Protein backbone atom coordinates (compact mmCIF):
# COMPACT_ATOMS: atom_id res chain seq x y z
CA UNK A 1 0.00 0.00 0.00
CA UNK A 2 1.48 3.31 -1.09
CA UNK A 3 0.55 6.37 0.93
CA UNK A 4 0.39 9.88 -0.44
CA UNK A 5 2.65 12.45 1.22
CA UNK A 6 -0.41 14.10 2.70
CA UNK A 7 -1.76 10.82 4.11
CA UNK A 8 1.58 9.95 5.68
CA UNK A 9 1.95 13.43 7.15
CA UNK A 10 -1.52 13.25 8.71
CA UNK A 11 -0.90 9.77 10.10
CA UNK A 12 2.45 10.72 11.62
CA UNK A 13 0.95 13.87 13.17
CA UNK A 14 -1.71 11.73 14.83
CA UNK A 15 0.94 9.34 16.16
CA UNK A 16 3.04 12.21 17.44
CA UNK A 17 0.03 13.70 19.24
CA UNK A 18 -0.82 10.28 20.66
CA UNK A 19 2.73 9.86 21.98
CA UNK A 20 2.39 13.21 23.79
CA UNK A 21 -0.99 12.25 25.20
CA UNK A 22 0.42 8.96 26.49
CA UNK A 23 3.52 10.63 27.95
CA UNK A 24 1.33 13.02 29.95
CA UNK A 25 -1.29 10.47 31.03
CA UNK A 26 -1.90 10.20 34.77
CA UNK A 27 -1.14 6.46 34.55
CA UNK A 28 2.37 7.18 33.25
CA UNK A 29 2.74 10.12 35.61
CA UNK A 30 1.46 8.35 38.70
CA UNK A 31 2.91 9.80 41.88
CA UNK A 32 4.27 6.45 43.01
CA UNK A 33 6.52 6.27 39.95
CA UNK A 34 7.93 9.74 40.44
CA UNK A 35 8.45 9.08 44.10
CA UNK A 36 10.52 6.00 43.35
CA UNK A 37 13.08 8.44 42.01
CA UNK A 38 12.77 11.25 44.52
CA UNK A 39 11.90 9.32 47.61
CA UNK A 40 14.06 6.22 48.11
CA UNK A 41 12.02 3.15 48.83
CA UNK A 42 13.17 0.06 50.60
CA UNK A 43 13.69 -3.45 49.25
CA UNK A 44 10.56 -4.42 51.15
CA UNK A 45 8.52 -1.84 49.21
CA UNK A 46 9.86 -3.22 45.93
CA UNK A 47 9.07 -6.72 47.14
CA UNK A 48 5.45 -5.64 47.57
CA UNK A 49 5.47 -3.98 44.15
CA UNK A 50 6.95 -7.10 42.55
CA UNK A 51 4.23 -9.33 43.99
CA UNK A 52 1.55 -7.16 42.37
CA UNK A 53 3.40 -6.53 39.10
CA UNK A 54 4.38 -10.12 38.32
CA UNK A 55 0.88 -11.19 37.21
CA UNK A 56 0.93 -8.43 34.56
CA UNK A 57 4.30 -9.60 33.28
CA UNK A 58 3.13 -13.21 33.19
CA UNK A 59 0.00 -12.45 31.18
CA UNK A 60 1.30 -9.96 28.60
CA UNK A 61 2.47 -12.63 26.18
CA UNK A 62 -0.98 -14.22 26.21
CA UNK A 63 -2.76 -10.98 25.30
CA UNK A 64 -0.35 -10.58 22.38
CA UNK A 65 -0.91 -14.16 21.21
CA UNK A 66 -4.66 -13.64 21.30
CA UNK A 67 -4.38 -10.38 19.41
CA UNK A 68 -2.17 -12.03 16.81
CA UNK A 69 -5.02 -14.38 15.93
CA UNK A 70 -7.17 -11.40 14.99
CA UNK A 71 -4.52 -9.44 13.09
CA UNK A 72 -5.91 -8.61 9.64
CA UNK A 73 -2.69 -8.73 7.66
CA UNK A 74 0.88 -9.98 7.60
CA UNK A 75 2.36 -6.60 8.46
CA UNK A 76 0.46 -6.41 11.73
CA UNK A 77 1.23 -10.09 12.41
CA UNK A 78 4.92 -9.42 11.82
CA UNK A 79 5.05 -6.61 14.35
CA UNK A 80 3.21 -8.68 16.95
CA UNK A 81 5.45 -11.67 16.22
CA UNK A 82 8.63 -9.61 16.62
CA UNK A 83 7.52 -8.40 20.04
CA UNK A 84 6.46 -11.92 20.97
CA UNK A 85 9.85 -13.33 20.03
CA UNK A 86 11.43 -10.89 22.49
CA UNK A 87 8.88 -11.85 25.12
CA UNK A 88 9.75 -15.53 24.60
CA UNK A 89 13.37 -14.70 25.37
CA UNK A 90 15.08 -14.22 21.99
CA UNK A 91 17.15 -11.28 23.23
CA UNK A 92 17.34 -12.31 26.87
CA UNK A 93 19.41 -15.48 26.93
CA UNK A 94 16.46 -17.69 26.06
CA UNK A 95 14.58 -16.87 29.24
CA UNK A 96 11.11 -15.46 28.80
CA UNK A 97 10.23 -12.22 30.53
CA UNK A 98 8.30 -13.88 33.34
CA UNK A 99 11.39 -15.98 34.23
CA UNK A 100 13.49 -12.83 34.21
CA UNK A 101 10.99 -11.14 36.46
CA UNK A 102 11.13 -14.02 38.94
CA UNK A 103 14.85 -13.34 39.38
CA UNK A 104 14.02 -9.77 40.36
CA UNK A 105 11.30 -11.01 42.71
CA UNK A 106 13.72 -13.30 44.48
CA UNK A 107 16.27 -10.49 44.77
CA UNK A 108 13.54 -8.34 46.32
CA UNK A 109 12.85 -11.00 48.95
CA UNK A 110 10.18 -13.37 47.60
CA UNK A 111 10.85 -17.09 48.00
CA UNK A 112 10.64 -19.27 44.85
CA UNK A 113 7.03 -20.28 44.21
CA UNK A 114 5.63 -17.50 46.38
CA UNK A 115 4.58 -15.50 43.32
CA UNK A 116 1.49 -17.70 42.97
CA UNK A 117 0.12 -17.18 46.48
CA UNK A 118 0.28 -13.42 46.99
CA UNK A 119 -3.13 -11.75 47.52
CA UNK A 120 -3.61 -9.42 44.58
CA UNK A 121 -5.12 -5.97 44.82
CA UNK A 122 -8.44 -5.83 42.91
CA UNK A 123 -6.85 -3.36 40.48
CA UNK A 124 -4.22 -5.94 39.49
CA UNK A 125 -7.00 -8.35 38.62
CA UNK A 126 -8.86 -5.57 36.80
CA UNK A 127 -5.80 -4.78 34.68
CA UNK A 128 -5.42 -8.38 33.53
CA UNK A 129 -9.15 -8.90 32.96
CA UNK A 130 -9.42 -5.62 31.03
CA UNK A 131 -6.54 -6.55 28.71
CA UNK A 132 -7.96 -10.02 27.99
CA UNK A 133 -11.26 -8.32 27.22
CA UNK A 134 -9.60 -5.78 24.92
CA UNK A 135 -7.54 -8.45 23.13
CA UNK A 136 -10.49 -10.76 22.53
CA UNK A 137 -13.66 -8.65 22.41
CA UNK A 138 -12.70 -5.26 21.00
CA UNK A 139 -11.87 -4.56 17.34
CA UNK A 140 -8.29 -5.45 16.41
CA UNK A 141 -7.16 -1.81 16.28
CA UNK A 142 -8.38 -1.16 19.83
CA UNK A 143 -6.29 -4.14 20.92
CA UNK A 144 -3.35 -2.85 18.94
CA UNK A 145 -3.76 0.57 20.57
CA UNK A 146 -3.75 -1.00 24.02
CA UNK A 147 -0.85 -3.43 23.58
CA UNK A 148 1.05 -1.22 21.15
CA UNK A 149 1.14 2.48 22.08
CA UNK A 150 -0.58 1.86 25.44
CA UNK A 151 2.31 -0.38 26.49
CA UNK A 152 5.33 0.20 24.31
CA UNK A 153 5.21 4.00 24.44
CA UNK A 154 4.43 4.23 28.13
CA UNK A 155 6.71 1.55 29.62
CA UNK A 156 10.06 3.23 28.90
CA UNK A 157 8.88 6.43 30.66
CA UNK A 158 7.50 4.49 33.65
CA UNK A 159 10.43 2.08 33.92
CA UNK A 160 13.00 4.87 33.75
CA UNK A 161 11.60 6.18 37.04
CA UNK A 162 11.33 2.68 38.51
CA UNK A 163 14.93 1.87 37.59
CA UNK A 164 16.15 5.06 39.28
CA UNK A 165 14.27 3.99 42.41
CA UNK A 166 15.57 0.41 42.26
CA UNK A 167 19.16 1.67 42.07
CA UNK A 168 18.54 4.00 45.01
CA UNK A 169 17.14 1.09 46.99
CA UNK A 170 20.45 -0.74 46.47
CA UNK A 171 19.58 -3.36 43.85
CA UNK A 172 22.50 -4.57 41.74
CA UNK A 173 22.31 -4.22 37.94
CA UNK A 174 22.11 -7.99 37.56
CA UNK A 175 19.05 -8.07 39.85
CA UNK A 176 17.11 -5.48 37.84
CA UNK A 177 17.85 -6.73 34.34
CA UNK A 178 14.16 -7.24 33.65
CA UNK A 179 13.63 -3.51 34.08
CA UNK A 180 16.72 -2.24 32.26
CA UNK A 181 16.18 -4.70 29.39
CA UNK A 182 12.76 -3.13 28.79
CA UNK A 183 14.19 0.36 28.56
CA UNK A 184 16.06 -0.83 25.48
CA UNK A 185 13.67 -3.40 24.00
CA UNK A 186 10.56 -1.26 24.31
CA UNK A 187 12.30 1.62 22.52
CA UNK A 188 12.80 -0.83 19.62
CA UNK A 189 9.24 -2.14 19.88
CA UNK A 190 7.90 1.41 19.93
CA UNK A 191 9.83 2.33 16.79
CA UNK A 192 8.74 -0.84 14.91
CA UNK A 193 5.23 -0.17 16.05
CA UNK A 194 5.14 3.35 14.71
CA UNK A 195 6.02 2.06 11.26
CA UNK A 196 3.35 -0.64 11.49
CA UNK A 197 0.72 1.86 12.63
CA UNK A 198 1.19 4.52 9.95
CA UNK A 199 -0.80 2.72 7.28
CA UNK A 200 -3.79 2.27 9.59
CA UNK A 201 -3.73 5.88 10.71
CA UNK A 202 -4.70 7.40 7.38
CA UNK A 203 -8.35 6.73 8.25
CA UNK A 204 -10.09 8.76 10.96
CA UNK A 205 -12.07 5.78 12.30
CA UNK A 206 -8.87 3.74 12.70
CA UNK A 207 -7.21 6.59 14.56
CA UNK A 208 -10.14 6.69 16.97
CA UNK A 209 -9.90 2.94 17.61
CA UNK A 210 -6.14 3.00 18.22
CA UNK A 211 -6.42 5.99 20.57
CA UNK A 212 -9.32 4.39 22.44
CA UNK A 213 -7.29 1.23 23.00
CA UNK A 214 -4.27 3.15 24.25
CA UNK A 215 -6.38 5.14 26.71
CA UNK A 216 -8.27 2.08 27.95
CA UNK A 217 -4.94 0.44 28.73
CA UNK A 218 -3.54 3.54 30.44
CA UNK A 219 -6.65 3.99 32.56
CA UNK A 220 -6.22 0.40 33.73
CA UNK A 221 -2.56 1.21 34.33
CA UNK A 222 -3.42 4.24 36.48
CA UNK A 223 -5.77 2.08 38.54
CA UNK A 224 -3.04 -0.56 38.80
CA UNK A 225 -0.56 1.98 40.20
CA UNK A 226 -3.13 3.06 42.78
CA UNK A 227 -3.44 -0.59 43.76
CA UNK A 228 0.33 -0.82 44.15
CA UNK A 229 0.36 2.41 46.18
CA UNK A 230 -2.31 0.95 48.43
CA UNK A 231 -0.34 -2.28 48.90
CA UNK A 232 3.02 -0.60 49.57
CA UNK A 233 1.58 1.69 52.25
CA UNK A 234 -0.56 -0.94 53.93
CA UNK A 235 1.85 -3.90 53.82
CA UNK A 236 4.38 -1.84 55.76
CA UNK A 237 1.78 -1.23 58.49
CA UNK A 238 0.78 -4.90 58.49
CA UNK A 239 4.40 -6.00 58.78
CA UNK A 240 5.36 -3.71 61.65
CA UNK A 241 2.20 -3.07 63.68
CA UNK A 242 -0.46 -5.17 65.40
CA UNK A 243 -3.36 -6.59 63.34
CA UNK A 244 -6.14 -4.05 62.86
CA UNK A 245 -3.83 -1.02 62.76
CA UNK A 246 -3.82 -0.73 58.96
CA UNK A 247 -6.65 1.16 57.30
CA UNK A 248 -6.96 -1.57 54.69
CA UNK A 249 -8.18 -5.13 54.38
CA UNK A 250 -7.43 -7.92 51.92
CA UNK A 251 -10.85 -9.54 52.14
CA UNK A 252 -11.77 -11.35 48.93
CA UNK A 253 -8.40 -10.75 47.27
CA UNK A 254 -7.41 -13.54 44.90
CA UNK A 255 -3.98 -15.01 44.33
CA UNK A 256 -2.51 -15.75 40.92
CA UNK A 257 -3.07 -19.47 41.55
CA UNK A 258 -6.76 -18.84 42.29
CA UNK A 259 -7.07 -16.69 39.18
CA UNK A 260 -5.62 -19.49 37.04
CA UNK A 261 -8.10 -21.92 38.57
CA UNK A 262 -11.04 -19.59 37.89
CA UNK A 263 -10.15 -18.27 34.47
CA UNK A 264 -9.91 -20.14 31.24
CA UNK A 265 -8.88 -18.08 28.24
CA UNK A 266 -9.44 -19.74 24.92
CA UNK A 267 -9.43 -18.97 21.23
CA UNK A 268 -12.38 -20.74 19.68
CA UNK A 269 -14.63 -20.84 16.65
CA UNK A 270 -17.84 -18.89 17.08
CA UNK A 271 -20.57 -19.67 14.50
Amino acid at each position, binding site marked *: MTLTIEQEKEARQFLSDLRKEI*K*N*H*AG*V*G*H*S*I*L*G*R*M*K*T*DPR*SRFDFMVLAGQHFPLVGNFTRYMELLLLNAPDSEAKCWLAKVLVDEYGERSEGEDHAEHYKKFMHAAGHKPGEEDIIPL*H*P*EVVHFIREHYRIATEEPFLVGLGALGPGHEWSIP*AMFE*LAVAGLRKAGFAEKEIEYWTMHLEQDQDHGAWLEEALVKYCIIERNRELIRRGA*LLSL*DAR*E*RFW*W*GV*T*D*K*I*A*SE*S*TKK*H*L*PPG*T*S*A*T*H*TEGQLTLRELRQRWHVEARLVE
Partner: protein
Amino acid sequence: MAIDNLMVVAFGGPTKECCGKHAECPGQAFCFVNGIFGDNPARRARVDEVVEHYKFFGGFSRFNEITEAQANAIRAELKKRGHDLKLTVGYDHWMPWIADQVAKVDGEFLVMVMTPHQSAVSWDAYLRRVTEGLEKLDESSRPKWAGVVEPFWNKPGFIEALADRVREAAKAINADLTNSSTGLVLSAHAIPMSLVKTSKYVEQIKETAELVAAKVGAANLMVAYQSAPSDSKIEWTTPYLERAIEELKDGGARKIVAAPIGFLCDNVEVLYDLGVEGKNKADDLDLPFAAAEAVNTHPAFIKQLADNVEAKLNELTTR
Protein backbone atom coordinates in the same frame (compact mmCIF):
# COMPACT_ATOMS: atom_id res chain seq x y z
CA MET B 1 9.61 1.55 80.11
CA ALA B 2 6.98 4.31 80.35
CA ILE B 3 5.43 5.79 77.24
CA ASP B 4 6.77 9.33 77.41
CA ASN B 5 6.51 10.55 73.81
CA LEU B 6 3.68 11.47 71.47
CA MET B 7 4.45 11.71 67.79
CA VAL B 8 1.89 13.53 65.67
CA VAL B 9 2.02 12.78 61.94
CA ALA B 10 0.19 14.52 59.12
CA PHE B 11 0.24 15.36 55.40
CA GLY B 12 1.99 18.75 55.71
CA GLY B 13 1.97 21.97 53.73
CA PRO B 14 4.56 24.42 52.37
CA THR B 15 6.07 26.91 54.82
CA LYS B 16 8.57 29.72 54.18
CA GLU B 17 11.47 27.37 54.91
CA CYS B 18 13.35 26.24 51.78
CA CYS B 19 13.46 22.48 51.17
CA GLY B 20 16.87 22.84 49.50
CA LYS B 21 16.08 20.35 46.74
CA HIS B 22 16.72 22.81 43.91
CA ALA B 23 19.80 24.97 43.27
CA GLU B 24 17.50 27.87 42.43
CA CYS B 25 14.30 27.90 44.50
CA PRO B 26 11.22 27.61 42.24
CA GLY B 27 9.01 28.53 45.21
CA GLN B 28 7.98 26.44 48.18
CA ALA B 29 4.49 25.77 46.82
CA PHE B 30 5.99 24.34 43.62
CA CYS B 31 8.41 22.12 45.56
CA PHE B 32 5.61 20.90 47.80
CA VAL B 33 3.12 20.05 45.05
CA ASN B 34 5.79 18.74 42.70
CA GLY B 35 7.06 16.52 45.51
CA ILE B 36 3.62 14.98 46.01
CA PHE B 37 3.66 13.94 42.34
CA GLY B 38 7.25 12.73 42.66
CA ASP B 39 8.78 15.32 40.33
CA ASN B 40 7.24 13.46 37.42
CA PRO B 41 7.28 15.51 34.18
CA ALA B 42 4.05 13.84 33.04
CA ARG B 43 2.13 15.71 35.76
CA ARG B 44 3.65 19.15 35.28
CA ALA B 45 0.39 20.70 34.05
CA ARG B 46 -1.45 19.47 37.15
CA VAL B 47 1.37 20.67 39.42
CA ASP B 48 1.19 24.15 37.87
CA GLU B 49 -2.58 24.19 38.28
CA VAL B 50 -2.39 23.40 42.01
CA VAL B 51 0.51 25.80 42.61
CA GLU B 52 -1.78 28.59 41.39
CA HIS B 53 -4.17 27.75 44.24
CA TYR B 54 -1.32 28.24 46.72
CA LYS B 55 -0.29 31.50 45.05
CA PHE B 56 -3.86 32.76 45.55
CA PHE B 57 -3.08 32.67 49.29
CA GLY B 58 0.46 34.01 49.05
CA GLY B 59 2.29 30.80 48.11
CA PHE B 60 2.23 29.09 51.50
CA SER B 61 -0.10 27.02 53.66
CA ARG B 62 -1.05 27.26 57.33
CA PHE B 63 -1.24 23.47 57.51
CA ASN B 64 1.87 22.99 59.65
CA GLU B 65 1.19 25.99 61.87
CA ILE B 66 -2.33 24.77 62.67
CA THR B 67 -1.27 21.14 63.10
CA GLU B 68 1.43 22.21 65.55
CA ALA B 69 -1.11 24.35 67.44
CA GLN B 70 -3.41 21.31 67.63
CA ALA B 71 -0.55 19.10 68.84
CA ASN B 72 0.53 21.63 71.48
CA ALA B 73 -3.06 22.01 72.70
CA ILE B 74 -3.41 18.21 72.99
CA ARG B 75 -0.14 18.04 74.92
CA ALA B 76 -1.31 20.82 77.29
CA GLU B 77 -4.62 19.04 77.85
CA LEU B 78 -2.84 15.77 78.60
CA LYS B 79 -0.46 17.53 80.98
CA LYS B 80 -3.47 18.84 82.92
CA ARG B 81 -4.56 15.20 83.24
CA GLY B 82 -1.17 14.14 84.57
CA HIS B 83 0.43 12.83 81.36
CA ASP B 84 3.56 14.81 80.62
CA LEU B 85 4.47 13.68 77.11
CA LYS B 86 7.28 14.97 74.94
CA LEU B 87 5.84 16.04 71.60
CA THR B 88 7.24 15.52 68.10
CA VAL B 89 5.42 16.55 64.91
CA GLY B 90 6.35 15.35 61.43
CA TYR B 91 4.91 15.50 57.91
CA ASP B 92 4.73 13.21 54.91
CA HIS B 93 5.19 15.93 52.28
CA TRP B 94 7.06 18.80 53.92
CA MET B 95 9.60 19.57 56.58
CA PRO B 96 10.05 18.48 59.27
CA TRP B 97 9.78 15.06 57.57
CA ILE B 98 8.27 12.26 59.65
CA ALA B 99 11.24 9.95 59.01
CA ASP B 100 13.69 12.59 60.30
CA GLN B 101 11.59 13.43 63.34
CA VAL B 102 11.60 9.80 64.51
CA ALA B 103 15.33 10.17 65.23
CA LYS B 104 14.51 12.92 67.76
CA VAL B 105 12.27 10.66 69.83
CA ASP B 106 13.95 9.31 72.92
CA GLY B 107 12.19 6.41 74.61
CA GLU B 108 8.84 4.77 73.99
CA PHE B 109 6.31 6.59 71.82
CA LEU B 110 2.73 6.66 70.65
CA VAL B 111 1.79 7.84 67.18
CA MET B 112 -1.29 9.92 66.46
CA VAL B 113 -2.33 10.13 62.80
CA MET B 114 -3.93 13.45 61.94
CA THR B 115 -6.50 12.30 59.44
CA PRO B 116 -10.16 11.78 60.27
CA HIS B 117 -10.91 9.04 57.76
CA GLN B 118 -8.70 6.07 56.99
CA SER B 119 -7.23 4.98 53.68
CA ALA B 120 -3.87 3.60 52.61
CA VAL B 121 -2.69 6.94 51.19
CA SER B 122 -3.11 8.84 54.44
CA TRP B 123 -3.27 6.61 57.52
CA ASP B 124 -0.95 3.83 56.32
CA ALA B 125 1.31 6.15 54.33
CA TYR B 126 2.15 8.29 57.37
CA LEU B 127 2.70 5.20 59.52
CA ARG B 128 5.00 3.85 56.82
CA ARG B 129 7.11 6.99 57.19
CA VAL B 130 7.50 6.28 60.90
CA THR B 131 8.77 2.80 60.06
CA GLU B 132 11.12 4.27 57.47
CA GLY B 133 12.54 6.59 60.14
CA LEU B 134 12.98 3.74 62.60
CA GLU B 135 14.75 1.57 60.03
CA LYS B 136 17.31 4.32 59.39
CA LEU B 137 18.45 4.12 63.01
CA ASP B 138 20.79 1.64 64.67
CA GLU B 139 18.94 -0.84 66.82
CA SER B 140 20.64 0.55 69.93
CA SER B 141 19.38 4.11 69.35
CA ARG B 142 15.98 3.15 67.96
CA PRO B 143 13.01 4.47 69.99
CA LYS B 144 10.31 1.93 70.82
CA TRP B 145 7.00 2.24 69.03
CA ALA B 146 4.32 1.53 71.64
CA GLY B 147 1.22 1.87 69.48
CA VAL B 148 -1.10 3.99 67.37
CA VAL B 149 -3.87 6.18 68.79
CA GLU B 150 -7.33 5.08 67.59
CA PRO B 151 -9.02 7.02 64.78
CA PHE B 152 -11.80 9.47 65.64
CA TRP B 153 -14.19 9.88 62.69
CA ASN B 154 -17.26 9.12 64.83
CA LYS B 155 -16.12 10.34 68.24
CA PRO B 156 -18.42 12.83 70.01
CA GLY B 157 -15.82 15.62 70.44
CA PHE B 158 -14.97 15.59 66.71
CA ILE B 159 -18.63 15.60 65.75
CA GLU B 160 -19.39 18.40 68.23
CA ALA B 161 -16.55 20.54 66.83
CA LEU B 162 -17.75 19.99 63.25
CA ALA B 163 -21.35 20.74 64.23
CA ASP B 164 -20.24 24.00 65.84
CA ARG B 165 -18.41 25.03 62.68
CA VAL B 166 -21.48 24.22 60.59
CA ARG B 167 -23.73 26.29 62.87
CA GLU B 168 -21.29 29.26 62.67
CA ALA B 169 -21.31 29.12 58.87
CA ALA B 170 -25.11 28.85 58.72
CA LYS B 171 -25.42 31.86 60.97
CA ALA B 172 -23.23 33.91 58.62
CA ILE B 173 -25.83 33.64 55.82
CA ASN B 174 -28.82 33.40 58.12
CA ALA B 175 -29.56 29.85 56.96
CA ASP B 176 -31.93 27.55 58.82
CA LEU B 177 -30.32 24.11 58.71
CA THR B 178 -33.55 22.42 59.81
CA ASN B 179 -35.33 23.68 56.70
CA SER B 180 -34.77 21.76 53.48
CA SER B 181 -34.26 25.07 51.65
CA THR B 182 -30.76 25.05 53.21
CA GLY B 183 -28.51 22.52 51.54
CA LEU B 184 -25.72 21.22 53.76
CA VAL B 185 -22.68 19.92 51.84
CA LEU B 186 -20.16 18.01 53.92
CA SER B 187 -17.00 17.46 51.92
CA ALA B 188 -13.93 15.27 52.04
CA HIS B 189 -10.97 14.72 49.76
CA ALA B 190 -11.81 12.55 46.76
CA ILE B 191 -9.85 9.31 46.43
CA PRO B 192 -9.71 6.89 43.49
CA MET B 193 -12.26 4.09 43.69
CA SER B 194 -9.21 1.79 43.55
CA LEU B 195 -8.54 2.72 47.19
CA VAL B 196 -12.18 2.57 48.26
CA LYS B 197 -12.19 -1.17 47.54
CA THR B 198 -9.78 -1.94 50.37
CA SER B 199 -10.72 0.59 53.06
CA LYS B 200 -13.66 1.96 55.01
CA TYR B 201 -12.94 5.55 53.89
CA VAL B 202 -16.32 6.17 52.29
CA GLU B 203 -18.30 4.45 55.07
CA GLN B 204 -16.44 6.48 57.70
CA ILE B 205 -17.13 9.75 55.87
CA LYS B 206 -20.79 8.82 55.53
CA GLU B 207 -20.99 8.09 59.26
CA THR B 208 -19.28 11.39 60.18
CA ALA B 209 -21.66 13.28 57.88
CA GLU B 210 -24.77 11.60 59.29
CA LEU B 211 -23.69 12.26 62.88
CA VAL B 212 -22.97 15.94 62.13
CA ALA B 213 -26.25 16.32 60.25
CA ALA B 214 -28.16 14.77 63.16
CA LYS B 215 -26.37 17.05 65.64
CA VAL B 216 -27.35 20.23 63.77
CA GLY B 217 -30.75 18.89 62.71
CA ALA B 218 -29.97 19.27 59.02
CA ALA B 219 -32.90 18.58 56.74
CA ASN B 220 -31.04 18.52 53.42
CA LEU B 221 -27.63 16.82 53.53
CA MET B 222 -25.24 15.81 50.76
CA VAL B 223 -21.80 14.28 51.12
CA ALA B 224 -19.41 15.54 48.44
CA TYR B 225 -15.82 14.98 47.39
CA GLN B 226 -13.33 17.61 46.31
CA SER B 227 -9.81 18.18 45.02
CA ALA B 228 -9.61 15.21 42.62
CA PRO B 229 -6.84 15.79 40.04
CA SER B 230 -8.32 17.24 36.85
CA ASP B 231 -6.00 15.15 34.65
CA SER B 232 -7.09 11.76 35.98
CA LYS B 233 -9.74 10.01 33.89
CA ILE B 234 -10.41 7.06 36.18
CA GLU B 235 -13.28 6.92 38.63
CA TRP B 236 -12.87 8.81 41.92
CA THR B 237 -15.32 9.12 44.78
CA THR B 238 -18.31 11.25 43.78
CA PRO B 239 -20.34 13.42 43.68
CA TYR B 240 -17.82 16.21 43.30
CA LEU B 241 -18.48 19.37 45.24
CA GLU B 242 -19.74 21.45 42.30
CA ARG B 243 -22.13 18.71 41.20
CA ALA B 244 -23.45 18.33 44.75
CA ILE B 245 -24.22 22.05 44.90
CA GLU B 246 -26.08 21.76 41.57
CA GLU B 247 -28.03 18.75 42.82
CA LEU B 248 -29.00 20.53 46.01
CA LYS B 249 -30.29 23.46 43.98
CA ASP B 250 -32.21 21.13 41.67
CA GLY B 251 -33.74 19.57 44.79
CA GLY B 252 -34.99 22.93 46.05
CA ALA B 253 -32.11 24.32 48.17
CA ARG B 254 -31.91 28.12 48.18
CA LYS B 255 -28.86 28.52 50.42
CA ILE B 256 -25.73 26.38 50.72
CA VAL B 257 -23.71 25.71 53.85
CA ALA B 258 -20.53 23.72 53.21
CA ALA B 259 -18.14 22.19 55.72
CA PRO B 260 -14.84 20.30 55.27
CA ILE B 261 -15.44 17.19 57.38
CA GLY B 262 -12.54 15.32 55.77
CA PHE B 263 -9.97 17.97 56.68
CA LEU B 264 -8.67 18.98 60.10
CA CYS B 265 -7.32 22.44 59.34
CA ASP B 266 -7.81 25.34 56.99
CA ASN B 267 -5.26 24.27 54.42
CA VAL B 268 -5.29 25.46 50.82
CA GLU B 269 -7.62 22.68 49.66
CA VAL B 270 -10.19 23.84 52.18
CA LEU B 271 -9.71 27.53 51.50
CA TYR B 272 -9.49 27.26 47.70
CA ASP B 273 -11.28 24.14 46.51
CA LEU B 274 -14.13 24.53 48.98
CA GLY B 275 -14.01 28.23 49.85
CA VAL B 276 -13.28 29.71 46.41
CA GLU B 277 -14.41 27.09 43.88
CA GLY B 278 -17.43 26.09 45.96
CA LYS B 279 -18.46 29.72 46.31
CA ASN B 280 -17.93 30.37 42.59
CA LYS B 281 -20.27 27.50 41.79
CA ALA B 282 -22.90 28.76 44.23
CA ASP B 283 -22.54 32.29 42.80
CA ASP B 284 -23.12 30.91 39.30
CA LEU B 285 -26.35 29.38 40.57
CA ASP B 286 -27.36 32.52 42.52
CA LEU B 287 -27.22 30.71 45.84
CA PRO B 288 -25.97 32.37 49.04
CA PHE B 289 -23.01 30.27 50.21
CA ALA B 290 -21.02 29.92 53.41
CA ALA B 291 -18.00 27.66 53.92
CA ALA B 292 -17.35 26.56 57.48
CA GLU B 293 -13.96 26.75 59.10
CA ALA B 294 -12.23 23.38 59.62
CA VAL B 295 -12.13 22.06 63.18
CA ASN B 296 -8.63 23.53 63.67
CA THR B 297 -8.13 23.95 67.45
CA HIS B 298 -11.77 23.73 68.48
CA PRO B 299 -11.75 22.84 72.22
CA ALA B 300 -14.09 19.85 71.80
CA PHE B 301 -11.84 18.42 69.09
CA ILE B 302 -8.68 18.90 71.15
CA LYS B 303 -10.33 17.31 74.18
CA GLN B 304 -11.42 14.36 72.02
CA LEU B 305 -7.92 13.75 70.71
CA ALA B 306 -6.55 13.99 74.26
CA ASP B 307 -9.19 11.43 75.31
CA ASN B 308 -8.04 9.11 72.53
CA VAL B 309 -4.38 9.43 73.52
CA GLU B 310 -5.25 8.85 77.17
CA ALA B 311 -7.32 5.79 76.32
CA LYS B 312 -4.39 4.31 74.38
CA LEU B 313 -1.96 5.10 77.20
CA ASN B 314 -4.27 3.35 79.69
CA GLU B 315 -4.74 0.36 77.39
CA LEU B 316 -1.00 -0.06 76.89
CA THR B 317 0.04 0.50 80.50
CA THR B 318 -2.47 -2.05 81.83
CA ARG B 319 -1.32 -4.77 79.38
